């Protein structure tokens, strides 16, 4: 019996880890796409995600679903609208940041855009502070409270696989596959890969490099926006400092997978989600960020190219 419980606990941690891994992966993709194309670590990306959760919250509030109290059933249409608003908002804001804060520094020494990104991060954090205040905000719990394992299959287990998990995974996985498809098959996706490998040659192929870079920031922002709704509905809270922890996890995931490597970021996201959840389950929540930071340090020391290999923007 004791053994069954142990396995239950492990399985429960794994489900939680996979679901958390999904939003981490979506955010990590934003880091890795941008790094892949202009070798910039976009420090503001986690904060962009935080602003996304605020955009969702504001949209839901305007639509009359700022709290779940008194709501009968899930307002699916409102959720779809909130997600689209957050995606457009984060996508647009990311493009704007690139245009204003990074593009003018494209030919400057590498440190300049990095510092500029830290500046953008501060600006985003302060916008967040002004927007929703300093205290954590409750994000409405709008999804059905339904656990498939106990309620549908009638299993008696600690493991929960709820509508929330299904919601997150059934959005995140198609988004990632869609991204991979865009990069692999579309004209813009091929242009992105060409710019990432050799932007000067891409220019000579007739590619508008500025447009391609803007498009890359747009994609990263769209994914962060989508992740923000999932995060909010799953965790039911948000706060203006959320970008730091979310960003740290996602950045670690991107480095773990091999920064610049798109499949690496997705894989890294899931691995990191699992690691965080196992750390919380077996060592306690206070150890979560320690685990993440230690992993980051370990990768940087022992395998700086990540699991799937770092991608240099350079020609081979």
């Amino acid at each position, binding site marked *: 019996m004791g053994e069954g419980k142990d396995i239950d606990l492990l399985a429960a941690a794994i489900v939680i880890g996979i679901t958390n891994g999904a939003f981490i992966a979506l955010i990590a993709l934003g880091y890795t796409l941008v790094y892949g194309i202009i070798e910039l670590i976009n420090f503001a990306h986690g904060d962009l995600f935080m602003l996304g959760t605020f955009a969702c919250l504001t949209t839901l509030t305007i639509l009359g679903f700022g709290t779940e109290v008194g709501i009968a059933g899930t307002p699916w249409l409102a959720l779809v609208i909130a997600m689209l608003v957050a995606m457009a908002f984060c996508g647009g804001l990311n493009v704007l940041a690139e245009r204003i804060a990074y593009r003018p520094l494209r030919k400057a020494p590498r440190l300049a855009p990095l510092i500029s990104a830290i500046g953008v991060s501060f600006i985003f954090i302060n916008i967040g502070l002004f927007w929703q205040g300093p205290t954590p905000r409750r994000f409405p719990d709008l999804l059905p409270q339904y656990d498939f394992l106990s309620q549908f299959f009638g299993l008696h287990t600690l493991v929960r696989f709820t509508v929330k998990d299904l919601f997150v995974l059934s959005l995140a996985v198609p988004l990632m596959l869609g991204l991979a498809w865009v990069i692999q098959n579309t*004209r813009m996706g*091929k*242009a992105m*890969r*060409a710019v990432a*490998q*050799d932007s*000067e*040659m*891409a*220019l*000579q*192929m*007739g*590619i*508008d*490099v500025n447009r391609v870079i803007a498009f890359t920031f747009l994609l990263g922002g769209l994914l962060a926006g989508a992740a923000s709704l999932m995060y909010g509905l799953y965790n039911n809270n948000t706060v203006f400092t959320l970008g730091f922890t979310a960003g740290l996890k996602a950045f670690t995931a991107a480095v773990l997978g091999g920064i610049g490597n798109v499949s690496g970021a997705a894989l890294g996201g899931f691995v990191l989600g699992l690691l965080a959840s196992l750390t919380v389950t077996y060592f306690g929540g206070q150890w979560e960020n320690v685990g993440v930071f230690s992993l980051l340090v370990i990768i940087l020391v022992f395998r700086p190219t990540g699991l799937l290999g770092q*991608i240099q923007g350079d*020609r*081979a």
Partner: protein
Amino acid sequence: MPILEVQDVHTYYGNIEALKGISLKVEQGEIVTLIGSNGAGKTTTLRTIAGVLRPRRGTVRMDSSDLTKTPANQIVRLGIAHSPEGRRIFARMTVRENLEMGAFARGAANIADDYERVYTLFPRIKERLKQRAGTLSGGEQQMLAIGRALMARPKLLLLDEPSMGLAPVLVELVFQTIKEINAQGMTVLLVEQNAHMALTIANRGYVLQTGKIVLSDTAKALASNEMVRKAYLGED
């Protein structure tokens, strides 16, 4: 009227003047070669024509456009394609995708004919279409770089050291192919350190020394010129 006319071009790297007033012309249908030793400024000249370097002074005219005022990504649309020094193929894209990128500016119109043309010139490329370009041998990468440039259907092809690092039989093959492309009507501006081969296939040539053109003549005359023979053909 020449297809390309470079006039008094001065190009700098920071404060270093790499081109000190270059003028040259390329006529429709010619192979013109630019020879000179390492560091003379040959690559800088081609990169200036291709628009990725901007001269501080001077003009580069193609038909009625001044290329020095044309955005670099529009130059291919005016009919110039560049197979650069070191090939610079997109190593992580497939061979086929590399060719496709060559035709990027044209969109997908009639692209099938262009693939066929490249496959006919370079049958080895056709066998490797699905492979990552980075896995090709040096010679194959060179063929791919030329093929990619041809996919743009240029009026003028810029070739920078296509023989660099290739085994002698491949050098022979590459030069044969350049002649063949030219026979089909392509105008070529060829940069080479291998002056002997370049002068064999070119109509005319320019000799570049530390950023200046010191000699220009028909390829035949250059090949028998005393100074050229000593300095670039390794004879004494």
